[in-house]
């Protein structure tokens, strides 16, 4: 067991660090609106042009073809450089691209992967539906084959970035009479600009519109856009879910560690609950901050262990769910700590120059999106511990 990097990796890290240092945008990423699209495209293109896009993606599609560890180094330095959130390219880079690499046709790869890496095509996800949230496999958005097309009718919800996306990872029910609800589902690349696609934003408690509902009215998608086989979409979707975690998660964790250190700094300058001493002198606040430090260290260790297993081609188990659960609930504690440190000023969003209240509100979603904490605990209990299913 080891925490060292090879000399070659150290050289790679130095290159990454230098480039990021010189090239990370000076302007902060906008939070909402069309400016985000302009910003995200420009930043992704900049990375691509300098040869930093798709570190571990195949060379033939514009990637660098490097190892997981180099990918990890990239993310570590990316986070340390406080480089921007992937935003509109999050789905494309973290889910859609890896799925196409794993399960797509040659033609799909050749068309989509470079467009993603070059910052041309943002993607969105199209999994959840109004009546299919935790029970994803019960989805009912219907698609029937008509000649060379799938004709889609129905609706998807909780779709982030749908306003700006060019493409969508779309799960549709193509065989309603299949034996089980997991059968009869197809994973298809949806073009968001097709006639019949209607995107409506949903207003959220943090003041930013994270989500959209997307409606499909006889939307005709070419059959060649199907990834994997017709009616085999569930297994393709499961591939994608695996990508949700991994090296990208490490970047988030490094960002979280930085947030915790910022909280410790904040606690030295802000007054504590007694209104007299700095917050850090309050034993309860100090205990909370120390625990966050420890938990974040554990999270980092868990992620390193997970990447180490992946390097050795171990079949990934439910341990990604362990990490995701721990991570998401810790984030809520981190931002609640931030809001608490703001004291009465947490009620004043303009006073929260560091946006702690905003982040606190936003963190509410952590235990819901991408699988609720309840569903995640079911997965851990059933797949990792072998307890009997309850559904």
């Amino acid at each position, binding site marked *: 067991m080891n925490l060292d990097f090879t000399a070659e990796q150290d050289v790679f890290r130095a290159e990454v660090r230098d480039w990021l240092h010189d090239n990370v945008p000076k302007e902060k990423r906008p939070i909402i609106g069309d400016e985000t699209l302009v910003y995200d495209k420009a930043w992704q293109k900049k990375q691509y042009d300098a040869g930093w896009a798709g570190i571990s993606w195949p060379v033939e599609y514009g990637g660098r073809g490097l190892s997981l560890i180099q990918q990890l180094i990239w993310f570590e330095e990316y986070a340390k450089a406080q480089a921007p959130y992937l935003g509109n390219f999050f789905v494309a880079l973290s889910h859609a691209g890896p799925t196409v690499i794993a399960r797509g046709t040659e033609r799909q790869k050749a068309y989509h992967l470079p467009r993603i890496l070059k910052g041309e095509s943002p993607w969105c996800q199209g999994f*959840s539906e109004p*009546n*299919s*949230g*935790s*029970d994803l496999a*019960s989805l009912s958005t219907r698609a029937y084959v008509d000649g060379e097309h799938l004709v889609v009718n129905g609706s998807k*919800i*909780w779709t982030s970035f749908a306003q700006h996306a060019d493409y969508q990872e779309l799960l549709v029910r193509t065989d309603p009479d299949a034996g089980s609800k997991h059968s009869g589902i197809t994973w298809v690349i949806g073009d968001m600009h097709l006639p019949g696609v209607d995107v409506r934003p*949903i*207003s*959220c*408690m943090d*003041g930013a519109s994270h*989500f959209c509902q997307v409606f499909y009215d006889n939307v005709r998608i070419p059959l060649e856009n199907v990834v994997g086989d017709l009616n085999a979409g569930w297994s393709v979707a499961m591939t994608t879910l695996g990508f949700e975690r991994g090296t990208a998660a490490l970047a988030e964790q490094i960002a979280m560690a930085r947030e915790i250190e910022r909280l410790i700094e904040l606690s030295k300058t802000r007054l504590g*609950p*007694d*209104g007299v001493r700095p917050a850090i002198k309050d034993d*309860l606040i100090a205990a909370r901050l120390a625990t966050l430090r420890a938990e974040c260290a554990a999270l980092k260790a868990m992620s390193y262990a997970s990447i180490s297993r992946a390097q050795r081609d171990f079949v990934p188990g439910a341990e990604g769910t362990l990490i995701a659960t721990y991570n998401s609930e810790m984030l809520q504690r981190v931002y609640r700590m931030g*809001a608490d440190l703001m*004291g*009465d*000023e*947490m*009620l*004043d*969003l*303009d*006073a929260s120059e560091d946006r702690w*209240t905003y982040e606190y*509100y936003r963190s*509410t*979603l952590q*235990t*819901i*999106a991408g699988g*609720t*904490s*309840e569903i995640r*605990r*079911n997965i851990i209990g059933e797949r990792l511990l072998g307890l009997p299913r*309850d*559904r």
Partner: protein
Amino acid sequence: MVDLVATDEQQQIANSVAEYLRAELPLDRLTKKGKANSDTDHAKWKAMAELGWFGLGLPEEQGGIGYSEVEEAFLYREMGRLLVTPSAIAASLGARVAAGAGNGELAAAIISGEVRPAITIATSVGEVGPRVSGRYQLFDGAEADLALFLSADGAALVERRALNDLKVSRSGDDALSLELADLNGAPTVAYVGADAGIRRNGLLLAAAMLAGMCEATRDMASAYAKIREQFGQPIGKFQAVKHKCADMAIRADAVNALVAFASITVRDRRADADFQVAAAKLLGAQYALLNAKENIQVHGAIGFTTDLPAHLFLKRAHVLDHFGGAVRRQQMDLLAQPAA
């Protein structure tokens, strides 16, 4: 004789308040795009005043209705359930301040709804006396006539126009406007010292609202758990959801009983009133925050949207938590009390 069940009369008051609010200020008034408490509650201000709400706990000789803090707690619990503006607290307290300061005319004007005060929360160590100094947040005060200031030293009313350099800020509670005031010896229109117990009344009213919010979130979550289906069954059948709802019920029951108990100790000027009120305020805030968060969780992503009022319960709970001193402050105050 010891009795913690509402009398018929008390129950009637609670029922009539609940009935009025459900009809006139239903929760979904706040889920319409961009709607704040001011858009809806202010239009009903005079009507609420005419129902006697802002003078409910004041003696008749002070221009009040002549009920007590006990009935007032019922009123505020119902208001909390429907997220009525905390300006109501400012009115009930403001009438007391005015009456206590001998300004019967102002008390009457507040009680009748002609003059509307708003609450403030101190963000610095200030001074509340015949003149008021310090930095404050003013909630839902954009169209108010008066601002109410509370501290351990007393309670005061200041005219809004005497608040110089008010700065509009973005409120953590979307349904309430927020302005920042920096006062340097602003003149008051009425002031009473600490012995008038206005702060204690304020803590009790906030605790009562928080108790109502605990109930409302419990009800909202369990209603949704009965109708929302996943995996072919109502989600309330799953223990993960069911037990969350049960916890919400425990918290709501605990806070409600404690608020009722505390309101009696205040009415009867019992020696343990400060103890009970601090306990009610701190548990009320803690539990309302927990219930609000769990309510969002039970609803899933829809609970995160502004289509439902779930998020407003969380945000309002934070405002009421900080009003009169947040949980940690209440804990210190409670521990400084003799055993009850």
